[in-house]
């Protein structure tokens, strides 16, 4: 039971990390390698708001979410849009976006380095035991889990049960055809990218309540997010959530019953197994 | 017509609950030009996919000159001597037209290489009416020319049997005439062909024999004229007689 709950909590963390990229890559078709830097930047901003101004990280969400949305919107329209426009096909866009966001990765990292230096940071927030079925967990983790659940469910409802959401998915499938059904592809893609960025930033805020972070840690998050997004099937929220939970559970299981030294190995092994049997990810669809 | 070249025996293909090809059997003799027709979604493309190895059957077997080929990987079947075109044209976009055809010559049933492959490819391009356009990148070619490339590529493997999936679709009437002439010629040279087509003019004028499918089941098989007059075929596929 303890293992299960711990695993679920961890899965919640992973869900947070991966949801933003799911949108950015799955819908806006930008393989955002700077995803992890966005997350870390949010950690720093949260830290700065909390320790400098006493703004509670949960309140901080209300600032950081919208700000990240706007910033990512601008990034998309200024930096990514030209790439989208000039790309003759999806492959070219993928290459271009990888190169461009690789540049962004360094840029963000450099800016954070200037602002905060390279040391480790953390702070104490809701680091109180919270008891579930007689086991105690960090309240901050529980809060993050609840937030992850709320975000994932709302995102799912939005994408699968609203017209706007279906439009977002349509853009993911075929941007050219989407224009023919009165979808403003540019705005929709910018919206998806910005929403993805905003979710990633919220993830950063929540994570910072229980993670020790520094400027150089973005890549780790990006890698984890990539693995989850791919394992779930590109662009599929359900897949990403499921993959995140499964990873969380596996890691905890392996750590508790086998050997914590094998957690990451188990993580990747699971990922590889999934792809061996479902080459298009858990919920991925085979292209025709 | 001693040993049939191709034997389809109780072949079945199910996608989940949907049975796209339902225990179909028929034979194709050497040198025959068989029309495979039927309503949309009746399983024709699936049938071709089963023969060419793009899909493997759920059950049943397929024999080419007596040799079982069902379920073999596509490249093996291609080497044994089955070539095809695709319902939506598939050319190799980053290669020239000559290279596209060479691609068919090098690995298929034929297996020629070097100058021999180049000569063969040039000949075939000329035969399909693309002489002098060897170096044009196929991406810049029109639809019908791409279809020609596809045909030449399929022929380059010197296959025992050629599968054409709506190769004539989308051609305008004058192009259609040229296309039909080309198929007739190829058939006249003794090549065995199965063609899937919705253009009845072509079926009527080219095919001696037709197999008709409906909802995955074979509903008719025989001389084109009589099959096309079969009331069930008319009802399910052709529609009430009018202007054809």
């Amino acid at each position, binding site marked *: 039971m303890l293992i299960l709950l711990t695993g679920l909590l961890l899965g919640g963390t992973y869900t947070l990390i991966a949801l933003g990229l799911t949108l950015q890559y799955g819908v806006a078709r930008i393989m955002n390698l700077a995803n992890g830097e966005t997350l870390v930047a949010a950690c720093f901003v949260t830290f700065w708001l909390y320790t400098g101004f006493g703004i509670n990280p949960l309140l901080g969400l209300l600032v950081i979410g919208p700000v990240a949305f706007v910033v990512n919107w601008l990034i998309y329209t200024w930096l990514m849009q030209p790439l989208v426009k000039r790309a003759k096909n999806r492959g070219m866009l993928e290459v271009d976006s990888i190169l461009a966001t690789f540049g962004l990765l360094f840029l963000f990292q450099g800016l954070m380095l200037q602002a905060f230096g390279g040391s480790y940071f953390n702070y104490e927030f809701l680091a109180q035991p919270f008891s579930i079925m007689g086991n105690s967990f960090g309240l901050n983790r529980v809060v993050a889990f609840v937030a992850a659940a709320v975000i994932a469910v709302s995102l799912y409802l939005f994408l699968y049960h609203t017209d706007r959401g279906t439009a977002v998915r349509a853009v993911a499938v075929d941007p050219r055809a989407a224009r023919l059904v009165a979808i403003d592809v540019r705005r929709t893609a910018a919206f998806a990218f910005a929403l993805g960025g905003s979710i990633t930033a919220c993830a950063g805020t929540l994570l910072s309540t229980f993670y020790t972070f520094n400027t150089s840690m973005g890549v780790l998050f990006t890698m984890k997010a990539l693995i989850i997004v791919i394992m779930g099937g590109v662009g599929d929220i359900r897949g990403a959530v499921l993959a995140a939970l499964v990873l969380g559970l596996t890691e905890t299981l392996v750590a508790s019953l086998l050997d914590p*030294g094998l957690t990451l190995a188990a993580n990747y092994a699971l990922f590889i197994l999934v792809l061996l049997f479902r080459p298009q990810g858990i919920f991925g669809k085979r292209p025709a | 017509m001693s040993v049939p070249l191709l034997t389809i025996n109780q072949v079945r293909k199910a996608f989940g609950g949907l049975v796209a090809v339902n225990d179909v059997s028929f034979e194709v003799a050497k040198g025959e030009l068989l029309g495979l027709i039927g309503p949309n979604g009746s399983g024709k493309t699936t049938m071709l996919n089963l023969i060419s190895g793009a899909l493997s059957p759920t059950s049943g077997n397929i024999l080419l000159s007596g040799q079982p080929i069902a379920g073999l990987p596509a490249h093996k079947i291609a080497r044994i001597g089955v070539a095809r075109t695709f319902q939506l044209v598939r050319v190799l976009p980053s290669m020239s037209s000559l290279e596209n055809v060479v691609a068919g010559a090098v690995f298929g049933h034929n297996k020629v290489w070097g100058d021999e492959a180049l000569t063969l490819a040039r000949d075939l391009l000329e035969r399909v009416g693309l002489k002098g356009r060897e170096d044009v990148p196929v991406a810049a070619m029109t639809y019908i020319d791409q279809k020609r490339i596809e045909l030449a590529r399929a022929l380059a493997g010197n296959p025992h049997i050629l599968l054409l999936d709506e190769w004539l679709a989308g051609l305008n009437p004058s192009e259609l005439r040229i296309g039909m002439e080309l198929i007739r010629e190829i058939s006249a040279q003794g090549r065995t062909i199965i063609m899937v087509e919705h253009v009845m003019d072509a079926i009527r004028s080219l095919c001696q024999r037709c197999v008709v499918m409906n909802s995955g089941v074979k509903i008719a098989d025989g001389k084109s004229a009589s099959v096309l007059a079969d009331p069930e075929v008319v009802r399910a596929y052709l529609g009430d007689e009018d202007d054809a």
Partner: protein
Amino acid sequence: MNIPRNEILTLGAGLAGAAVLAFLPLVTEGFWLSLSVNIMLYAAICTAWALFSGPTHLVSLASAAFFGVGTYSVAIFVDVLPFPALILIAVAAGALLAILVGLATLRLSGVYFVIFTLGLAELIGQIVTWVQTNFGGAIGLYVFTDFTETHLYWMLLALTVVVFLTGWLVNRSRLGLALRIIGNDEAVARHVGVDTARARIILFAVSGAFIAVAGAIMAPRYSYITPDAAFNPMTSFLVVIMALLGGTRRLWGPLVGVVPFTVVMDFISGHFPNQTAVIMGLAFLAIVYVLPDGVTGQLETLFRRRCSLDKSSLATTAEEGR
């Protein structure tokens, strides 16, 4: 088959160029040599990477895995076997790993392949770490040899030449054609009789073996081999970035990416040690927007424009002459 004249010329020029480069250590030592070792290293790896990823369009992030395997081949056996034998072990280990990966990834395409290979490299790194931790004995592997930077440079240069020759041979072979067809349309490839699985795996093995050799050659430079250095995912990323920057349609494409990339990045880290990341990021963005087709594409466009300029200027002179 007869070889076209201009290819013979290029080949000759290439070999001559390599011969000239071989003299570099005699001219300069120290920093420039170190930089050249790095350039040569990535020249070899990126070209080897592009042997497979260029024609198939399958972006592999497994370079770190092959590199690490090569490094460890040396680290484990350095005290018991002579160096050439270690290189052979690296070849075998790299190829074997590539074959396994190749088999596992046959059904994968696009981004699934990309991330699978990334995951795989990480997995291997993790397993090596775990084995080291639990089966002690060989913790913290030291590689002490008498190799100097010059030796490393020469070995890498030789490797690069071999990779280029292999690439040239492959391009002229049926295997090369098969891969180009696969890269265009895998379904078509199968239907014209290409054994796509075999072709993919063979070339992946060749590419992986070369990268492993590069890792083996670099091992003496690290002297202390740890999984996180040997299996550093950054290696995989850098390889992809440099090769894409150069362009993968030509055999020499990656090379023209590696040289400017390494030099520019080095210039930046040398001159702006505290703003490296920011400037590197900006430089990168600039490159993406200024060189949309990679360096190769840019060179080719320039070249073409030159030609057409020449022609049009010829035409105008002709006009005027009349």
